[in-house]
């Protein structure tokens, strides 16, 4: 390469660097604000996390920010104490037993309903869909007493099936709405092609609709899972059985009995948070897709 060519190559690289630098600087204020807001938002949670690793004496006398000065006093005792006593391990299991079916059942039921609303013609379809979506405005609190009475009559109070039913009912309007919009956006010719190939509605649903709707289903699963896992009210009203209490209920009880033992409360809270956090980070992509999927494609 000649000197002229070499120098023009170098100039080109330098100019590109300047352009990137300029872009970075122009966005700096925005980045600073966003990072600052994120840090501010996370500070209390971080404080709780630190507290959960501190011994009782330290938590009771000094603020969590002092944990980073000598002498360093960190311990795992809080976690082992919470897990071994107070039935927390049992509660974790109960949370799983409640949440997993209460996630799968509404999605399955909503899936069938959404397919019917989107692709099957029957009298009153639109009116029925509007009615189902209108149920979204009904607050849970309004339903608590009537449903409790109903459950008492049919002996579902304090049972897992009872709470699965309750969560299914509460989750269906949104699930049907989101899935119906997503299913409806699938190309009509795709389904017609399947019908011509000989597929029944069931086949079309399981072999075509479901595989193509994985983003919508995954995001709905996350929504429902988080909602049920973090639920206190529904469990409080319909379960009424200490042996079947989920983590939210158990931690709530801990507050009254260990009101001042923050190190135990924070440890319990973080044990409760672990599973949803794992699920969220694993399926994060679908969560973001799912927020816009129903809205945009509707």
């Amino acid at each position, binding site marked *: 390469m000649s000197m002229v060519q070499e120098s023009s190559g170098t100039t080109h690289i330098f100019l590109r660097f300047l352009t990137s630098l300029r872009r970075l600087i122009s966005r700096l204020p925005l980045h600073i604000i966003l990072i600052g807001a994120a840090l501010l938002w996370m500070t209390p949670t971080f404080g709780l996390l630190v507290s959960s690793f501190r011994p009782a004496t330290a938590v009771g006398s000094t603020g969590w920010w002092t944990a980073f000065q000598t002498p360093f006093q960190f311990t795992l005792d809080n976690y082992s104490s919470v897990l071994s006593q107070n039935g927390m391990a049992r509660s974790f299991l109960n949370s799983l037993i409640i949440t997993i079916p209460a996630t799968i059942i509404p999605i399955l039921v909503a899936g069938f309903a959404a397919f019917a609303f989107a692709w099957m013609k029957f009298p009153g379809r639109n009116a029925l869909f509007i009615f189902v979506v209108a149920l979204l405005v009904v607050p849970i609190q309004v339903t608590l007493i009537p449903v409790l009475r109903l459950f008492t009559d049919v002996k579902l109070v304090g049972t897992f099936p009872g709470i699965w039913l309750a969560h299914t009912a509460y989750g269906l309007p949104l699930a049907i709405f989101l899935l119906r919009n997503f299913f409806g956006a699938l*190309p009509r*010719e*795709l389904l*017609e*092609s*399947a*019908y*011509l*190939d*000989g*597929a029944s509605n069931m*086949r079309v649903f399981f072999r*075509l609709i479901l*595989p*193509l709707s994985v983003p919508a289903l995954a995001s709905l699963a996350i929504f429902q899972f988080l909602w049920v896992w973090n639920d206190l009210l529904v469990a409080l009203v319909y379960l009424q059985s200490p042996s079947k209490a989920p983590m939210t209920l158990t931690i709530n009880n801990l507050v009254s009995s260990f009101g001042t033992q923050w190190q135990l409360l924070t440890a319990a809270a973080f044990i409760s948070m672990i599973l949803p956090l794992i699920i969220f980070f694993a399926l994060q992509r679908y969560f973001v897709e799912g927020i816009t999927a129903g809205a945009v494609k509707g």
Partner: protein
Amino acid sequence: MAEVRFEHVTKRFGETIAVNDLNLTIPDKEFLVLVGPSGCGKSTALRLISGLEEPTSGKIYIGDRLINDVAPKDRDIAMVFQSYALYPHMSVHDNMAFGLSLRKTPKPEIQRRVREAARVLGIEDLLKRKPRQLSGGQRQRVALGRAIVREPAAFLLDEPLSNLDAKLRVQTRAELSKLHQRLGTTFIYVTHDQVEALTMATVIAVMNKGFLQQVGKPQNLYERPDNVFVAGFIGSPAMNFFDVTVKGSQDGIYLDAGTFQVPVPKGKVGILNKYLDKKIVFGIRPEDIHSPEYMAPGIIASSIRAKVDVTELMGNEFFLHMLSDDKSFLARVDARTPAKPGQEIELVFNMANMHAFDSETQASLQSNSNSSRSGA
């Protein structure tokens, strides 16, 4: 498989009548093209055959079997959609095998049919790919392959070439014709492109606003259109139309367009006798207008003078957009013709190929014993 027959079939969507009292017979093994402008009812007619739509009234038969209430999957037809409708989450192989596996066809038989169809279409190397990894032309072949493996009694194709680029379209037209000859199965093909209709069809059915206009062999529709619509739709560039008055003179009959007059050849005088001093629609195709220096021998020439408005050199011929007072028309002349915009030149009409239509009914005045309301 026997013929497909529409008997007084009407299809309404609310207030709109998409197909209006359609009576059409599609003979076995023909390549029938349903052609017409957007919204004419051709796709609806195809969907009625497939069973994806139900007729509002009327009967549809395959052979002697009334199929009005027969489910789409039991009609022994296969459809190729405009958008191909390939299953995006399945491989090419699984796309082609899907219909067969639903019908519980034995696996070895599925493999055999898929491989054979892939071989015919030249897509053996693509069997493991997903649709999103294919080009438009490849996807179209897969859609065809999915139909071929079903070995149906009839193929229904809904504008399958619309999404292809021009060059690929020309290539695929020839391949579809070859496929039809090879398979010997009935093809029912819908398009808005009359060039596709003329090049591929053994029978063409022209539709407009839900009504069947004319059915017949391509050459018949071109040479003897039943009405102004068919005359203007079939053939590219479209036929020129003039509102003229039929006048008599010592030498015979001529057509008076105001700005020019053309004599009617002896062979056509008979049909126009009833229209003396009345208005008719005179039609002449651009390819039947010649420059006097380069006209083909054996034509019945009739000269007119007109002004050149726009010229388009097509390489092997010249398109001249002409103006005769307020009347505009198109002529396809020899590429050597000296013509410049603004120039007044002499052109020659080949009156042997003139067309005449009733002004009110738009129907052709020439008897058309070769065309009928069926495909036979």
